[in-house]
């Protein structure tokens, strides 16, 4: 389909509304945050307009570096786990009868309606010593006595994967439904076993979808700040937790803003890097 390039200002009118929304709800608040990150903190009050780099300098310490590294690692791990679980699941789901697919999707959507708080407390009960799943393991003879599975890193990871999984499946579903099933059959007639055909044909044909899903879950997981607090120890707290702590409990808005800006920049850099690597592989 060929489209004519817009010629006059009037041709751009459809863009006005989204542009306005973007400015009011994204550009203005984000610019304010960047500005605040250079302000000076006023311990007795809030902050005073200024231009200092103290907030960024304070961030460049081993402690905050470690927290940033942990946050990124956690988000990457959640993204990888989600795609590894969701991809085969969604693939098998799309091969089911239409009715079964609808039921599963409705079920997944209902999980989306749960808030982060409910998910957090549900898992904290499930992982507890007194009422948790280890009691079940004891009952069927797998364990000697019930133990507490939290606060641990595993508990944080489980909770976050659980929370992000429905999104992952819903993003993968349309692409997998559209996938031509004869691609797999063609690979089989050419001598590939079903599993080999899946990895040789289905996965590469959907590479772009997989990369996009990884990025989406990564960004989603980066913003999580409740689950690490409910299910983890302080060393499992993410940068988002610290930003909230600084902004709300320490009233150090400039430092919180600086951390937020830093987090955004690092995530953007990582996403860009992923896309760049993807493009280079495509060119080969």
């Amino acid at each position, binding site marked *: 389909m060929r489209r004519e390039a817009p010629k006059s200002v009037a041709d751009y009118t459809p863009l006005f509304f989204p542009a306005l929304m973007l400015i009011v709800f994204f550009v203005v608040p984000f610019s304010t945050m960047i500005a605040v990150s250079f302000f000076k903190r006023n311990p007795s009050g809030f902050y005073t307009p200024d231009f200092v780099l103290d907030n960024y300098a304070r961030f460049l310490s081993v402690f905050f570096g470690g927290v940033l590294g942990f946050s990124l690692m956690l988000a990457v791990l959640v993204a990888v786990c989600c795609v590894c679980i969701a991809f085969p699941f969604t693939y098998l789901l799309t091969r089911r009868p239409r009715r079964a697919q609808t039921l599963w999707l409705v079920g997944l959507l209902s999980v989306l309606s749960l808030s982060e708080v409910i998910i957090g407390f549900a898992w904290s009960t499930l992982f507890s010593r007194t009422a948790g799943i280890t009691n079940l393991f004891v009952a069927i003879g797998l364990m000697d006595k019930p133990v507490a599975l939290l606060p641990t890193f595993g508990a944080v990871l489980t909770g976050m994967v659980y929370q992000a999984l429905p999104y992952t499946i819903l993003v993968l579903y349309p692409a997998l439904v559209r996938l*031509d099933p*004869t*691609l797999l*059959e*063609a*690979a*089989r*007639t*050419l*001598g*590939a*076993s*079903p599993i*080999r*055909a899946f990895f*040789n*044909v289905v996965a*590469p*044909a959907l*590479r772009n979808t997989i990369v996009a899903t990884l990025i989406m879950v990564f960004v989603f997981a980066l913003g999580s700040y409740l689950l690490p607090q409910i299910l983890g120890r302080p060393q499992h707290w993410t940068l988002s937790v610290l930003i909230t702590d600084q902004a709300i409990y320490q009233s150090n808005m400039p430092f919180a803003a600086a951390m937020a800006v830093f987090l955004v920049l690092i995530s953007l850099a990582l996403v860009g890097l992923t896309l760049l690597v993807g493009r280079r592989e495509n060119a080969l």
Partner: protein
Amino acid sequence: MSGLDINSITKKFGNFAAVDNVQLNVPHGTFVCLLGPSGCGKTTLLRMIAGLEEPTSGEIVLDGEDITPRPTHKRDLGMVFQSLALFPHLSVGDNIAYALRIRGASKEEQKKRVDELLSLIHLTGFADRPVAKLSGGQRQRVAIARALALSPKLFLLDEPLSALDAKLREAMQVELRQLQQRLGITTIVVTHDQREAMTMADLVVVMGHGKILQAAPPIEIYRKPADAFVADFIGITNLLPAEIDSTGRTTILGTAIPGLTMPAGQTKASVSVRPEDVHLGSPGGSAITGEVSFVRDLGGTIETFVDVGGTSIIAVTTPRERHDVPVGAKVGVTLPPASCVVLGA
């Protein structure tokens, strides 16, 4: 024992028999067309031969060996799908080399075979092109080359040309037939296009409702259709009711056809007459009298529709032998008894 034997194959989906007790022998090197309307079970039969569908009962024997329990990837066959199913993330060369790569062939071997196949399909130098950059006919050929990469014993094609436009389709039919003859490979094509079947096949298998209605060389199917369904499906035909009247003569539409005999003990039957066998002349005599209701002048041939008491008879003539019969004219239709095929029931 060389060739493909299909022994009482049945495939049921629930209570519905998509393929119903089919028996077929395909000698080595034969080009077979499975022909039939949609839903007649031809694709299901092909998919069972490929191993993509499991038969409910029966067996498939290739060169004396029962291959029914073997999974698809262990059967020695190449298949072209209706959607072609070219791998979108691979280049033309990598698509063709896929089967060789699975078998662990060296890079040089792969390249050598890809070059061979590309020259076979007249696409030399296309190895590095992405599949998306090809035209419909080129993709078609790449799919064929990919299926032939390992020189399989069986070459299966599921409606391979249906996505092409009419001209290109006719050209590809000829090309496919010539390729098959050069390679001498046993080939089975599923199609609903009888022209395609007539062009390519050594053996046409007409299917309907999961059963084989007739399996014969194309010209025999055309000249001696087994029943009304086959006669109607292959080309255009006039299906006319014939009966024996009180004086013992065989009549069609009330006019006696001398020389036409009915099977013993039968008083009524359907008769198939091809339009090119119908002669138009002046009314009267032993001819059936009718009125011309429509004339389709296609330049090369002329189709004349004659209405005889509510039944339409089509006659096809070339402009050279055609008498000038305008719409509304009374004509006499002569049906040569030798060209009338009396159909069972």
